[in-house]
């Protein structure tokens, strides 16, 4: 019995298969996750709406018309025999006669633009600070923690309102202000996950091999905290979209005549008792967009959570 079993990895019995690759497992989990799929599909539709707005929208979202003011949506014709509701303006018109459906479709552009741009800006600020603090610790960490505490103690809505009001409200100002206000969660989460990843032996192994610090951060740590980054990014994107809507609703966000959903809600406020659908429809759009982004984030967290591995 002097077979070379000692250094052998052990015999594999015929039926014994290797576990599937992480990639295959991930694909299987993504397609098996219903709410994640729902989020992806709805978000996809929203993106389609935003990018294809000029093609899909039946009317010019800015075209006003005195003749077609405050037309109700089509279901008013079905349920209440309202003769003013027509197929030409399926979701009715606002108080200056602009087609509501077209404005809602173009509104997806504003929300998504604000969401993505803010998320990128705040993500770059927050992730840089968080990863640096988590990796280097010590004084760097002290400074970053101080910045986070300072940022957290400033009331976001109030500061955003004040700055936008004082510096003039425009899309660019809103993006900049939100971008500089919403980085805290990125920093907090990235700091803690980097700290965790950093303490793992494979990082020590990379150090012992002689890898440079930038290589370790970019190639060893970042890929392993990417899932957390995606989750935070979705949360902050949703947050930014909601905040823009709130600012615009208070009249201190993007300015008319841009078809922002928040602005549409603000403009419809005085009609809310007589034309509640003017309030309901933009709200539903906002809700669906934010919901789909949140579901995407939750889904990513679920399918990449460590307890789901293996």
């Amino acid at each position, binding site marked *: 019995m002097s077979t070379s079993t000692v250094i*052998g990895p*052990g015999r594999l019995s015929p039926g014994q298969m290797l576990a599937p690759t992480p990639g295959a497992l991930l694909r299987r989990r993504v397609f098996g996750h219903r709410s994640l799929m729902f989020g992806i599909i709805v978000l996809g539709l929203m993106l389609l709406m935003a990018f294809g707005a000029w093609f899909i929208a039946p009317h010019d979202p800015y075209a006003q018309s005195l003749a077609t003011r405050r037309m109700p949506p089509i279901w008013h014709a079905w349920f209440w025999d309202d003769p003013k509701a027509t197929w030409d303006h399926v979701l009715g018109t606002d108080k200056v006669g602009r087609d509501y459906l077209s404005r809602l479709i173009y509104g997806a552009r504003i929300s998504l633009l604000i969401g993505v741009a803010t998320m990128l800006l705040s993500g770059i600020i927050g992730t840089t600070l968080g990863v640096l603090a988590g990796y280097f610790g010590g004084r760097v960490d002290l400074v970053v923690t101080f910045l986070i505490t300072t940022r957290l103690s400033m009331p976001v809505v109030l500061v955003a309102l004040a700055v936008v009001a004082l510096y003039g409200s425009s899309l660019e100002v809103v993006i900049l202000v939100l971008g500089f206000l919403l980085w805290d969660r990125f920093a907090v989460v990235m700091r803690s996950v980097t700290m965790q990843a950093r303490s793992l032996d494979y990082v020590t192994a990379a150090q012992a091999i002689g890898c440079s610090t930038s290589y370790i951060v970019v190639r060893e740590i970042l890929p392993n905290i990417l899932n957390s980054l995606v989750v935070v990014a979705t949360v902050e994107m949703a947050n930014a979209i909601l905040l823009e809507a709130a600012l615009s609703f208070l009249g201190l966000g993007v300015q008319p005549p841009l078809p922002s959903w928040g602005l549409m809600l603000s403009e419809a406020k005085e009609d809310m008792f007589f034309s509640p659908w003017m309030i309901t429809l933009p709200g539903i759009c906002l809700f669906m967009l934010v919901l789909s982004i949140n579901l995407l984030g939750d889904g990513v967290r679920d399918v990449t959570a460590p307890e789901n591995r293996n």
Partner: protein
Amino acid sequence: MSAILEVENLRVEIPVATGTLVPVRGISFSVQRGETLCIVGESGCGKSLTSLSIMNLLPKRAKRTADRLRLGGADLQTMDERTMSDIRGDRMAMIFQEPMTSLNPAYTVGNQLEEAFLRHRKASRREARERAVFLLEKVGISAAASRLGQYPHQLSGGLRQRVMIAMALMCEPELIIADEPTTALDVTIQAQILHLLASLQRELQMGVMLITHDLGIVARVADRVAVMYAGEIVETGTVHEVFSRPLHPYTQGLLRCIPVPGKTRRGAHLGSIPGVVPALFGDPTQCNFANRCEHAVPACTAGPVPLTGLGEGRGYRCVLPVETCIANQARPVAA
């Protein structure tokens, strides 16, 4: 001798997405008063689930069945959770592997000790306190009274495990189940804790069921041994028989794997068991060890292998006759 714990054909099933896992596959054993039974096996062999299923503390998804599961004559299988919880901590108590996490960080040591006593005995807080002090002294903790006000995080690992032992003894149980009680501890502390457990067991004439992966511990504390592999008991017997004349190829392999100071030659190759444990789906259809066994013959894969009893608690689960097994043991280590 009267058996405190009788277990016959115990099975644990866990339904998972791809089928039903059976991590414990029909095992039988008993623990007598004043005796230590060691269940030994490697990770994933089902030894911890066995202990939890006796306490009825299995994870929710897991299901337990048995032909017989009795504690001192009381049938544990027909008991509802309420009656079962009356027995837990009173007639049988458990000591866990991780003394660092097994005590609630939010309450004092005294509170957690007294709680066990107050739950099962009609006693005043003062009596519970006296009992706690008495037992802390018994497990070798100095200044016991002052320790009652301390929180678990203020104690070292060894002290916490002593507190866990004291907690298990609060109601003088007939049976103590210790699941890897020293794995998380340093070697010197391990020896102290095992020494303590052994002397307490002798003094109080308890039955002890000790679960471990460490053959050294088994050899030193066990009266009888059950070797588990892939959810089955593959060999049982008194500690002397199992260590001096191991019959099952797995037991033989395990004993060859460990270096023994003064016995194994320095730098010489140790024995090894190549291969991996099979997946534990469904019931065994052949000898579970066949794919790793160097003595495997065609009969091994023909059907499930029963445990062959040799009388007086001695048994082994192998198709080969006893004589062949003994001859195999005598062979030099494969290298």
